[in-house]
């Protein structure tokens, strides 16, 4: 390797290290006792492993419950939104229903809508419907929001679905419903799995609408519980680094599990 190349590689490695450094900093400080923190400051290496800060914070916010809520909400939304998307995309992309271009355009527009524009009416309607402060309300809302994107994406994917395969199945006597489940879904599984992962992570990360909808502690998701605490500015340094660590942990776990799906999804997508 030439000198110039080494230099560039070196610079890139340093920049990547700077990007990751905050994560290490959080990890390092989440295991410091308050005394340790006072003595060594945020940059010193921990004098020992002190887990009480993390367990205290875990119990204080009942983090297990928050993880459960987040998993239920994000998991239901991912599954339901993919289901709704594939049903619609089947009619639009393969069924070529009349007016499909308009329908797709409207869903594209829906996908753009800022949540700020929807949040107050949704809050009001949820109260009227008795769904305010329930996980169900958040699941319904995000199933709609995520599937607006899914319909748009899957319709264009399915519009290039080989027609012969569908027709061959029809000739063999399969009805529409069977064609969808036995032919279209299995063959589109790579795209569907990418969507599942994205919907799960997007919903997991949502904050605004879940914060408005889920006021009681028992219903809150991880970002809502942590974000609200942070917004109140009531945390001491130990609690804050514990909170950061507990917030980071699931995201990093997803990243490690889904890394290939994520980069494949993003990469495949933007390429013409």
């Amino acid at each position: 390797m030439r000198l110039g190349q080494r230099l560039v590689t070196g610079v890139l490695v340093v920049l990547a290290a700077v990007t990751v450094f905050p994560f290490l900093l959080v990890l390092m400080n989440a295991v410091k006792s308050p005394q340790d923190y006072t003595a060594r400051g945020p940059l010193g290496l921990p004098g020992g492993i002190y887990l009480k800060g993390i367990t205290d914070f875990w119990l204080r916010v009942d983090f297990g419950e928050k993880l459960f809520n987040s998993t239920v909400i994000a998991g239901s939304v991912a599954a339901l939104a993919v289901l709704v998307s594939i049903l619609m995309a089947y009619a639009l992309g393969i069924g070529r229903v009349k007016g499909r271009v308009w329908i797709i355009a409207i869903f594209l527009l829906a996908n753009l809508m800022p949540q700020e524009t929807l949040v107050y009416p949704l809050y009001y309607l949820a109260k009227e419907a008795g769904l305010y402060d329930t996980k169900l309300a958040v699941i319904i809302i995000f199933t709609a929001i995520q599937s607006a994107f899914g319909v748009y994406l899957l319709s264009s994917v399915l519009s290039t679905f080989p027609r012969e395969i569908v027709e061959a199945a029809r000739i063999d006597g399969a009805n529409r419903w069977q064609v969808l489940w036995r032919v279209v879904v299995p063959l589109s599984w790579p795209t569907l799995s990418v969507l599942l992962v994205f919907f799960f992570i997007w919903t997991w990360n949502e904050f605004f609408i879940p914060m408005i909808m889920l006021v009681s502690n028992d219903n809150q998701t991880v970002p809502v519980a942590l974000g609200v605490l942070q917004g109140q500015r009531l945390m001491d340094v130990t609690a804050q680094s514990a909170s950061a660590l507990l917030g980071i942990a699931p995201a990093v776990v997803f990243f490690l599990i889904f890394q290939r799906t994520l980069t494949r999804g993003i990469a495949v997508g933007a390429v013409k």
Partner: protein
Amino acid sequence: MTLHQDAPAPPAATAAPSRPPRPAGKANEPTRGYLPYLVPGVVLFVAVIAVPLVMNIGISFTKWQGVGDPEWVGWQQYQKLFSDGTFWLSFRNNLALIVAMAVIPTILGLILASALFDVVSKHHPRTTTTLRAAFYLPQVLPAVVAGIVWGWILHPEYGAANAFLRLVGLDSWAQNWLGDEKTALLSVMAVLVWIQIGYPLVIFMAGLQRVDPQLYEAAALDGASWWRRLWSVTVPQIRQEIFVVLLTCTIAGLKSFDKIFVLTRGGPGGATLTPSYFSFQNFFEKANVGYGAAIATILAAIIVTLSFLFLRAQNKEDR
């Protein structure tokens, strides 16, 4: 093209389905049998997006505290909005956030992606994957958690940023980063660049794989420098990706509520207030629901207009 940030984007050309014409005999095959499949999606769309959107526009023409009957006031909220200094301030702040979320990450992402692709990936494919993952990591965090991490690092008393400055003897540079009007917006911008940088990087690296290497060889033979090749070969070749990134990041920038909520709550003194946060304050803190709805409607109008212009520009390019 996608309008969801860091989403798998369908290719723009196939977005409007265009297929070869059907065989003549099947031209009238009824598509009505497919209509039931639309029902769940349409019902959800109407209930969660269409009705609330129309309601929000309706509310923006009223004075309403969220309880009792809204009072119809016509365009009054909008008139108030256009003469409200706070609203304009929030817009100026939002432009700064768009620079931090769209413009800077696109430029940096382009340079980093090209450098990674040209220099590192040829000799060390595994290092490339690791480096790309490192830059992308902040993207998978919930924005709220990124905010907590940086709120802690930038804390004036116990934060790591000031501790570092003191360590290297720059005590006088230590600041109340998020609490001082002079530095709050810049600090938020820096955090946003950190969050955002991985997204353009990943998209651009994927785009680069599709560029014909001969173009670079020809440019190199003509004596073009690395920067010159970046500008004259890479940028035109991956302009599709650049479009996607700029649009999605700009829209994401207009929707920045969560980062502001955890980092600064719009403060100090409105220094980091955005229209998004301003509408939230009016909805839920000041019980000025009509005014909040007007702000939110303007925000939606801007986003729709922007996307429309971007898409049109892109379609022109394709032709």
